[in-house]
């Protein structure tokens, strides 16, 4: 890995395994919109898995910033890919993956809410049903992917890089 004792040169450790593992987890967990209910937890898990895979694959311990970098990139890949798949299915078959589950979840919340906010929620459900795919939706999705991946990936990567501290130091 490196001529220097005790240090692993990170240039010799491609990120691919970590990105692939974390990307797959983020892809699967964000494809179905249960992430609406779980906030950024799916992306935290994706990022955590990416950095953990990297640490175990090369038997290194990572600095915080590098662990976060791998996790954020994996989340961008996974969440980006799931958004593309979601949009393609929406455009091709006019079907939104997991949308009915999400509406079911929202209706459950709206029914238990007091009248003013419950009514508002029912209105927003109707708006969601009528929503069509356009350039505005696409731009919003791009920003959402960046924002959510940044937050979730940073948390997951940071946790993984401080939890797994065995092996040589990667620099």
């Amino acid at each position, binding site marked *: 890995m490196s001529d220097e*004792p005790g*240090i692993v040169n990170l240039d010799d450790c491609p990120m691919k395994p970590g990105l692939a593992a974390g990307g797959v987890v983020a892809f699967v967990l964000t494809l179905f919109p249960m992430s*609406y209910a779980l*906030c950024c937890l799916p992306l935290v898990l994706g990022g955590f898995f990416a950095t953990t895979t990297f640490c175990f694959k090369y038997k290194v*311990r990572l600095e*915080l910033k590098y662990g976060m970098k791998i996790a954020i990139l994996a989340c961008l890949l996974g969440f980006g890919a799931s958004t593309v798949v979601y949009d393609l299915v929406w455009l091709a078959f006019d079907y939104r993956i997991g949308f009915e589950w999400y509406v079911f979840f929202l209706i459950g919340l709206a029914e238990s*809410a007091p009248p003013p906010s419950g009514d508002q929620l029912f209105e927003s459900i109707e708006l969601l049903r009528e929503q069509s795919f356009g350039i505005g939706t696409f731009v*919003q999705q791009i920003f959402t992917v960046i*924002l959510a991946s940044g937050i979730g990936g940073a948390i997951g990567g940071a*946790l993984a890089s401080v939890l797994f501290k065995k092996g040589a130091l990667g620099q």
Partner: protein
Amino acid sequence: MRGERRGYAVLTRSLRRVSIYGAMLGSMLLAALFLIAWNEWEFGHSLFSHLCHQKSERCFGFGPSHLAVCSRCIGIYFGMTGSCAIAWLQAKKVFTLNPWVGMILVISAIANLLDFGFEWFGFYQNAIWTRALLGLLTGISLVLFVLLRSPYRMDRDEEKAASMRLLERG
């Protein structure tokens, strides 16, 4: 002894940068959330729609609208931003390993899960402030756990190699 101090100094600078970036980005995120609520920006609300359910009665109101994330999420963001700012200002005091921080993080995560689960199954009805406080506790303990566990003792070989690399990099 001298080597240990030098090793810690390198790591401390790095962690201090992380806490500065964390505090800055967190402040920007919070400012954006308040601006979105104040100006009732639909685009802003939809931007956070994948990060949170945004149920209005579970969000804090601000100006004419409510915040784009729920009280638990805003608590987490506030906790993380505040902890980063504290770590930045108190950098020299922060770097003492304390096993209790990990325990607090686990307890707060379990408390959040129980709070969510009990309400989901209808055992009790929680309040907006309890959710915010639990989120705040999670955010604070998460950042402190990460920052406190990050510095570690390098052995002699590692430290020598790290110093050489830093010299090469200038």
